[in-house]
């Protein structure tokens, strides 16, 4: 750095100025070496969790959903909590890959691929839950407006159908975005590999990419277009998820603050999840110079900001409950904080609002152990936020004689465990089968990789 301090120069996003071929080596290494025992243990644990979930689901479908804790009036319980939680996890990926791309935040390059992959896996996990929740998932085809022998159509005025469109569009567009980003990297792996089987697979999926600048020209344009579409899309998805609640007339759900509040919460929990997994990945695969501490610190700042937005929403809900003068509304919110599920409410508030305040201190923002623990707490808190919204509200409906207390059964817990199993199994398989960092994007931001135009 010269002595004239120029604040327009960004700090380098990749540490140590690696050579271009070193980047190739570092990122391709996990794909070309034998897995360590730690990897196999991790895969074993996650697939065991997945298996537990699958067995619990098998029971639920064979014997019926009476195995769950759902009762009258709590008809939406853990499956819907899990759905909202996992859709939320996915949002960080699109935020990193699309919104930060539009804002020209170059630090995203190290983590964008991973975050996008997590989006896809989280949305796959999330998408299963509305189907699981119906109890007869093989009839899910009727959710789509396909001509059928009953000559019936779906109800396009229902938020549940908006959800079907939003989540399936989100999954498709995220996948396209991710795949378009993968093509140059797959071509690089194709040119690099010596195994014939791998070469065939990479050739098929890289579609014959030739690193041509006549192609890069269109490629950069489509990346911009997809980022431009993904940005409103990601906002719309959690908005529409919140409509599932907000469009109903239940006090505690029927609020206009829900869409922005859900989106902020989604980004909050998603960043916590991405941060947690990246801390592990960069350690195991020695990618500390590409996924840098600066990047993690920036993610912690995003979590601090979104955590405060969520905290503001909690406060604002209480204020509106009082200000509206609606006795049902104020009852619901007092019941949340001091009623039958007060324990869940205070787990939510302490994890989401109180502990994240520690990120004001730079030392904690840059301490791997501390940020990991806070990240885990954030996800616990955000899961409980959805639990509070869904279960507390339903368990105290308009008719006191029908009030009931919801308790999840072992099968419910097993399905929750299985969802984490599915997500982490997909993540663990991904980190050894595809490049976890976008090679072409990282190369393009390394110092000295771009020509100087005079």
């Amino acid at each position, binding site marked *: 750095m010269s002595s004239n301090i120029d604040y327009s120069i960004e700090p380098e996003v990749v540490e140590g100025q690696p050579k271009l071929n070193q980047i190739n080596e570092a990122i391709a290494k996990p794909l070309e070496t034998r897995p360590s025992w730690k990897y196999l243990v991790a895969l074993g644990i996650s697939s065991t969790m997945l298996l537990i979930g699958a067995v619990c689901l098998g029971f639920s479908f064979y014997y019926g959903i009476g195995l769950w804790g759902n009762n009258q009036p709590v008809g939406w319980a853990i499956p819907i909590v899990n759905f909202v939680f996992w859709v939320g996890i996915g949002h960080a990926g699109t935020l990193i890959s699309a919104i930060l791309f539009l804002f020209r935040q170059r630090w995203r390059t190290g983590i964008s691929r991973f975050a996008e992959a997590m989006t896809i896996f989280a949305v796959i996990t999330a998408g299963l839950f509305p189907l699981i929740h119906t109890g007869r998932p093989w009839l899910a085809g009727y959710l789509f*407006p396909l001509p059928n022998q009953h000559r019936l*159509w779906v109800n396009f005025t229902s938020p549940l159908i908006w959800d079907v469109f939003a989540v399936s569009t989100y999954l498709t567009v995220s996948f396209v975005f991710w795949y378009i980003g993968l093509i140059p990297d797959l071509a690089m792996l194709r040119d690099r590999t010596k195994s014939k089987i791998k070469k065939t697979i990479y050739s098929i999926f890289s579609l014959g990419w*030739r690193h041509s600048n006549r192609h890069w020209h269109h490629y950069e*344009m*489509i990346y911009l277009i997809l980022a431009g579409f993904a940005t409103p899309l990601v906002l719309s998805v959690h908005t529409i998820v919140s409509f599932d609640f907000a469009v109903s007339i239940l006090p505690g759900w029927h609020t206009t603050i829900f869409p922005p509040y859900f989106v902020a919460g989604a980004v909050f929990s998603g960043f916590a999840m991405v941060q947690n997994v990246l801390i592990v990945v960069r350690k195991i695969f020695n990618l500390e110079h590409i996924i840098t501490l600066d990047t993690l610190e920036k993610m912690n700042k995003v979590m601090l900001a979104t955590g405060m937005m969520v905290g503001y929403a909690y406060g604002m809900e209480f204020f509106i409950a009082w200000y509206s003068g609606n006795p049902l509304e104020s009852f619901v919110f007092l019941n949340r904080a001091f009623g039958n599920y007060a324990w869940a409410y205070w787990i939510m508030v302490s994890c989401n609002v109180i502990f994240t305040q520690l990120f004001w201190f730079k030392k904690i923002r840059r301490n791997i152990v501390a940020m990991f623990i806070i990240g885990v707490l954030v996800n616990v808190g955000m899961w409980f936020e959805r639990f509070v919204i869904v279960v507390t509200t339903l368990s105290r409906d308009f008719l006191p004689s029908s009030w009931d207390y919801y308790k999840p059964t072992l099968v419910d817990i097993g399905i929750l465990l299985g969802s984490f199993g599915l997500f982490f199994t997909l993540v663990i398989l991904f980190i050894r089968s595809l490049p976890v960092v976008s090679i072409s994007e990282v190369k393009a931001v390394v110092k000295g990789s771009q020509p*100087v135009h005079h």
Partner: protein
Amino acid sequence: MDNQMNTSENLYGVGALFKDPNKIVKVVEKLVELGYKHWDVHSSYPLHGIPKRMRLKWSPLGYVALILGLTGTLTGLFLTWWTMSVDYPLTIGGKPWFSFPAFVPVLFELTVLLASVGTAIVMLFIIFKFPNNQHPLHDTEYMKKVSVDHFGVFIEAKDELFELEKVKSLFNDFGADEIIEIAYDRNEVAFKPKVFDVKFISFLVVIAIITSSVAYLFNNKILYFPPFDFMLNQFRLGPQESSTFFADGFGMRKPPAGTVARNQEFYPFKNKPDEAGMKLVNPLLATKENLELGRNKFNTFCSPCHGWRGEGDSRLNGQFPNPPSLHSEKVRNWTDGRIYHVIMEGQNVMPSYASQLTEKERWAVILYIRSLQRALNAKQEDIQ
């Protein structure tokens, strides 16, 4: 690779590899100045400013996305409008059938879906003409180095200005680290896919067998296993089935004494035909609509025995005794209420038709019978 012979007849082109991206800028400027057309720059990541210096046209993908996005919006608009307000209109929450605000989320999602996926498909499969793993550049030393840390400039032999030695010396002038000639693979050029290849045909046969057996298994076997058979095995009794729950063993229950079911009619003239004939008055007027309804119901329920014109010419070929004609003096002189009573209660072998016809339909049928009687026994004034 072994089949590649660098002769002039199968030469694809010449490529130069550079380690310094700044040199590329100068080569590009020179090639544009000399007027080459079929050439390209290869790099494993997009080089800033190169497409502009190559004088590439502005990418049309923005317009493609716009057109596809609008197509998505219009598709969504048509879908929501046609299904919700034309094909199967349902009133939901007292809102109009075409409640546009409620359709906006779906329109938005379809716009994004079609624009994103469509633009990607247009770029990959139409503009780039992918998949293309047969391109001569694949599997060459040139491509391998370009994908790691070299930058390549490649001029195709089909360019009008292409002369092998001239191009090579041009690259040398700019300090190329390596110059590579690339030829077409003769085997690949000569290759022609055959439809009646044994391997190809057996591949198709295997696919057909797998698809049809999976379809057969699903439609004829799996759907009849629990839990997929929930529609076939339900906790209910069919008509006439006996019950183990009730003491008398009857599955079909009588309504409790003294109760009236919803919409159940109360007929006060049971076994009182004459009183019915005197007191009941047809509430319907002989409008075209009512007569149409009456004809329709008469043809469906009455005409099998009474005949199309009520002449007692049954179509049942003696399976059931023919009824007397409806044009007899007796029936013509009956009041509407008296006929109504016959429909309600039946007469001789005719059963009650109360459950087949609603009250309005019964009166409409009577209007139609009256018009038949008038037509077959026309008075002098009708003819005039």
